[in-house]
C-alpha cells in the first residue's frame, strides 16, 4: 500500500492542482512532495525487512497486474525522485512561473509516472508509467523555457517516442513468448532467457534504443543538450536528475536479466559507445560557454560511465550504479539550481558575460564549489563513493578489455575536473564582470542547497547509510 500511495499521492495531487488556480498551489505542491518524501523514506526503510510488494489484478485477460515492487535500486530511486521533487518545489518557491497551477499539476503527474517506472514489476505497467512520465514532461518543457523550446522539445518527444515504440514491439514479442501470457517480471525474464541467442541479439536493440535515448548514450544524445538548454529549470532537473535514471534503471531491471545472451553479445559494443560518449561529451563540455549546455554534456559523460558499469555486469558495479544514480541526481540538481540562481540574477548563462560572482555572492559560490567538486567526485563527497565503485566494478568485469575500459573511462575524471573547474573559475572568480547588484541567496534557496549539500557530504562520508539498508 505504501508503494501505491507513493504513486497515488502525486497523481491525485497533480490532478487537483490543475483546478487550483491560485498562487497557494505551491503550498499544496510542497505538502504533496513532503508527503511523498516521507513515504519514500518509509518505503526505503521498510524494504530492509524484505522486499515490499503490492499486487492487484488489472487486466486479467491480458495477464497484466498492477504489481509494484521496491527492491533495492527501486527504493533508492523512488527516494531520489521524492527528494528531487521536494527540492524543486523548495527552490521554485519564490519564482512562480506563469500558470503555476498547471505547472504544478504536470510536475506532480510526471512524478507519479517516474515513481511508477521505478516501482513497476509488471512489464505493461512499466510501459504505462514510462509514457506517463514522458507526456507531462513534454508539456512542461514546451510550455516553460527558452525561445526554441517548442521544436526542441518536440524533437525530444519524437526521439524518445521512437524508442518507446521499439520497446513496445519487444514488449509484445516477449509477452507472446511467456508460458502463461503474462507481463509479470519473472514470466518475462523466463521468456526472454528462453529465447535463442539470435533472437535475443535482435531484441536487444529494440529494448535498448528506448533506454539509450532516455539516458542518453552517444550517439543518441543530440536531443539532450538542446532540451536541457531550452527547458525551464525545474523541468531540466526532472529530465536530468530523475528521467535519465529511468533509462539506466530499466536497463538494469528489464534488459540485462531478460536478454542475457543479447547483452553478452552486444555489451562490448555498448561499452565502447559509452566510453566514446564519456570522452566525447567531456571534450564538448570543455568548449561550452553556456552553463546549461556544459552541465548537459557533463551529464552525458556521467551517465555514460554508469551505463558502462551496468554492462560490466558485476555486483559492485551494480551497487555503484545504484548509489551513483542517487548521487548524480542530487548533484546535478544542485548544479541546476545554482545555474538557475545565476541566470535569475544576471539574466545570462553565458560564461563570457559572467565572472567574479564570489565577490558579491560568496555563499552561492561556496555552494557552487562544493557541488562542483561533488560533480567531479572528490573524495568525501557522494559521487566519489559511486564512481569508485563504478570503476572498481568495471575493473572487475569479465570483459577481456576491462582494464583498458576502466582507464579510458577514467580519463573522464580528468576531463571532468577540467571543465568543471573552468566553469567555476569563469563564473565565480576573476573581476566582477557584471555590476548588477544581486542578492546572495534567499532562504528557500538556502534550504534547498542545504539539503543537497548535506546529502552530498553524508553519503560521501558515510555511504553505509544507503548500503546498510539496501546492500
Amino acid at each position, binding site marked *: 500500500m505504501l508503494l501505491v500511495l507513493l504513486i497515488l499521492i502525486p497523481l491525485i495531487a497533480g490532478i487537483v492542482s490543475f483546478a487550483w488556480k491560485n498562487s497557494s498551489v505551491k503550498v499544496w505542491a510542497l505538502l504533496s512532495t513532503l508527503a511523498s518524501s516521507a513515504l519514500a523514506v518509509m518505503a526505503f526503510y521498510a524494504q530492509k525487512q524484505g522486499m515490499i510488494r503490492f499486487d492487484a489484478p488489472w*487486466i486479467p*485477460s491480458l495477464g497484466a497486474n498492477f504489481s509494484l515492487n521496491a527492491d533495492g535500486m527501486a527504493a533508492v530511486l523512488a527516494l531520489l525522485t521524492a527528494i528531487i521533487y521536494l527540492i524543486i518545489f523548495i527552490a521554485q518557491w519564490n519564482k512562480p512561473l506563469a500558470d503555476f497551477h498547471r505547472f504544478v499539476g504536470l510536475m506532480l503527474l510526471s512524478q507519479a509516472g517516474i515513481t511508477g517506472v521505478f516501482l513497476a514489476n509488471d512489464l505493461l505497467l512499466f510501459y504505462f508509467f514510462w509514457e*506517463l512520465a514522458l507526456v507531462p514532461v513534454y508539456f512542461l518543457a514546451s510550455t516553460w523555457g527558452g525561445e526554441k523550446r517548442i521544436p526542441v522539445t518536440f524533437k525530444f*518527444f519524437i526521439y524518445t517516442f521512437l524508442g518507446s515504440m521499439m520497446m*513496445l514491439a519487444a514488449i509484445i514479442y516477449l509477452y507472446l513468448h511467456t508460458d502463461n501470457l503474462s507481463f509479470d517480471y519473472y514470466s518475462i525474464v523466463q521468456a526472454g532467457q528462453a529465447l535463442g541467442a539470435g533472437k535475443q541479439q535482435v531484441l536487444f536493440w529494440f529494448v535498448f534504443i528506448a533506454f539509450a535515448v532516455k539516458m542518453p548514450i552517444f550517439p543518441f544524445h543530440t536531443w539532450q543538450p538542446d532540451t536541457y538548454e531550452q527547458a525551464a529549470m525545474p523541468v531540466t532537473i526532472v529530465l536530468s536528475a530523475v528521467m535519465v535514471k529511468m533509462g539506466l534503471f530499466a536497463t538494469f531491471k528489464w534488459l540485462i536479466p531478460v536478454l542475457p545472451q543479447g547483452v553478452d553479445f552486444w555489451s562490448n559494443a555498448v561499452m565502447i559507445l559509452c566510453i566514446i560518449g564519456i570522452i566525447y561529451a567531456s571534450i564538448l563540455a570543455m568548449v561550452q560557454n553556456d552553463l546549461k549546455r556544459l552541465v548537459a554534456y557533463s551529464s552525458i559523460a556521467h551517465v555514460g560511465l554508469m551505463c558502462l558499469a551496468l554492462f560490466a555486469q558485476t555486483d559492485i558495479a551494480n551497487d555503484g550504479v545504484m548509489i551513483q544514480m542517487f548521487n548524480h541526481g542530487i548533484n546535478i540538481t544542485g548544479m541546476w539550481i545554482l545555474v538557475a540562481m545565476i541566470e535569475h540574477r544576471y539574466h545570462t548563462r553565458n560564461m563570457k558575460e559572467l565572472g567574479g560572482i564570489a565577490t558579491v555572492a560568496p555563499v552561492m559560490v561556496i555552494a557552487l564549489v562544493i557541488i562542483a567538486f561533488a560533480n567531479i567526485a572528490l573524495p568525501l563527497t557522494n559521487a566519489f563513493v559511486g564512481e569508485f565503485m563504478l570503476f572498481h566494478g568495471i575493473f572487475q568485469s569479465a570483459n577481456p578489455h576491462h582494464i583498458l575500459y576502466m582507464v579510458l573511462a577514467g580519463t573522464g575524471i580528468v576531463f571532468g575536473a577540467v571543465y568543471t573547474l573552468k566553469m567555476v573559475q569563469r563564473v565565480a572568480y576573476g573581476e566582477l564582470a557584471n555590476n548588477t547588484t544581486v542578492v546572495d541567496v534567499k532562504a528557500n534557496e538556502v534550504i534547498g542547497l542545504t539539503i543537497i549539500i548535506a546529502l552530498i557530504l553524508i553519503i560521501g562520508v558515510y555511504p553505509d547509510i544507503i548500503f546498510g539498508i539496501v546492500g
Partner: protein
Amino acid sequence: MKPLIAAAVFGIIMMLSAVFLKEKKQASGLAILLLFLLLGVNIWALTESLQSGGVATFLFNDMLRFDPFSVWFNVILSGLALLYVLLNAKHIEVVGNHVAEYYALLFFILVGGNLLNAYNNLLILFLGIEIISIPQYILAGSDKRNLKSSEASLKYLLTGSFSTGIMLMGMALLFGAMGSFDISQFDFGADGGFNLMAIVGILFLVVSLSFKVSAAPMHFWTPDVYDGAPTTFTTIMATIVKSAVFVGFMRLFKDSFSSISPNWELVVAIITALTLLIGNITAVFQQSVKRMLAYSSIAQAGFMLFAILAVNARGMQGMVLYAVAYSVATIGMFTIVAKLRDYTYDGFNGLARREPFLAFTAAIFLLSLAGIPLTGGFFAKYYMLMSVMSQGGYLTWLVVFALLMAVVSVYYYFRVIWAMYFKAGEAELTVPVSNADRLLFGISAMIIIAIGVYPGLVMGWL
C-alpha cells in the same frame, strides 16, 4: 433484429417528420430522442442476447446471424451515433435545409451498419454496404453552395460505384466456386480449379472492401471526400461508417475465409503496409487539420487492418477497442474542427487560452489517436499489434513497421497540440461552445481514459 427494425422505422419517421417540423432544432431534438430510443432498444437486445447465453441466433433463412459480439457492436454504433448527434446537432443544422432528411440518412446508415455486423450472406453484405454508401454520397454533397462538397460527392460516387462493381465480381466468382452466398456454408477444403476462382473472388473482395475502409491503394478518394464533404458529415464517414465496414470486413475474413488465410494474408499484409505508409507519411505535410485527419484515418485504417490479418479473437477484441477509441477521439476532433473558422493548423493557434477545456480534451483525443498509454488508443493499438504478432513470421516485422509509422503519426498529431498550447493566436470559433458541449467533450475524454486504464470495460466480457 429489434434494433434493425427500430433503426429503419426511426429513419422513416425522421423522413416523414420533415413535413411537420418547421424548425431545424425540432428535427435535431427528434433525432436525439430517437437515437436515445435506438440505444435503449440496442441495450435491450444486448441484455436478451446475454440472457440467452450468448449463443448465435440465425434469422431469415440464415441471412442474419446475431451473436453477442454483433449486438454489442451495434450498441457501440448507436452510442457513437448518439454522441455524434449530441455534439454535432448545431453543425448539422447549418449545413442545409433538409435537416430531418440528413437524420433519416443517418438512421439508414445505422441500418446498414447493423447489417454489416450481423450478416451471414454475401447479399446482405452487399446491401449493407450499399445502404451505407448511398447516404454517404448524398451527405458528402449536401452542402450545395460549396463546389467542393459537390466535387467530393461526385468523386465518391464514381469511385464508390466502381468498387461496388469490383466487389460484385468478387461475389460472383465466389459464388461460382462455392455454389452459395451463405458465408457459413463456404467450404474451401475441396480441390480443383474452383478453389482458385474462390481465391480470385476473395482478392476482389479484399480490394473492394479496402476501398470502403480507405486502405491503400484504394484510398485515393478518402482525402478528397473527407476534405470536401461538410465537416460534420465527414465525421460520420470517418467513424461510424468506417467502424461498421471494418467489422463487416473482419467477420467475412475471420469467420469464413480464415481457413485459407495463407492465400490472402500476404495481399492484406501488403495493403496494410501500404496504407500505414501512405496514410502516415502523407499526413505529415498537410496544412489543413481536416485533411490531416483524413490521412490519419487512412493511417488508422492500416492499424485496423491488423484485425483482419490476425484472424483470431484478440483481433476481434482489438477491433471493438479500436472502434470505440478511434471513433470517440475522431468524433471529438472533427467536432472541434467543425467549430473553427480556419481548418489549418494555424486555426488552432491559441485554442488552449481561449477554450482551455476544449483544448485539453482535444489533447486527450490526439494522444489517443497517437496511441499514447493511458488513453484508449494505446490498448486499441496494443491488441491489434499483439494479435498480429502472435501469428509470427514476417508479420512480426509488419508490426515493427507499424510502430515506426506510429512514431511518424506523433508528428502530425502533436502539431495540433503544439498549435493549441504553445502558439500564440486567437483561435476563432464559428459555433460557440456551450456547457453541454463541454460536458460531452468531458465524457468523451473520460471514455477514452477509462478504456485506456481498464480496457476490459468494452471488451472484457467478449
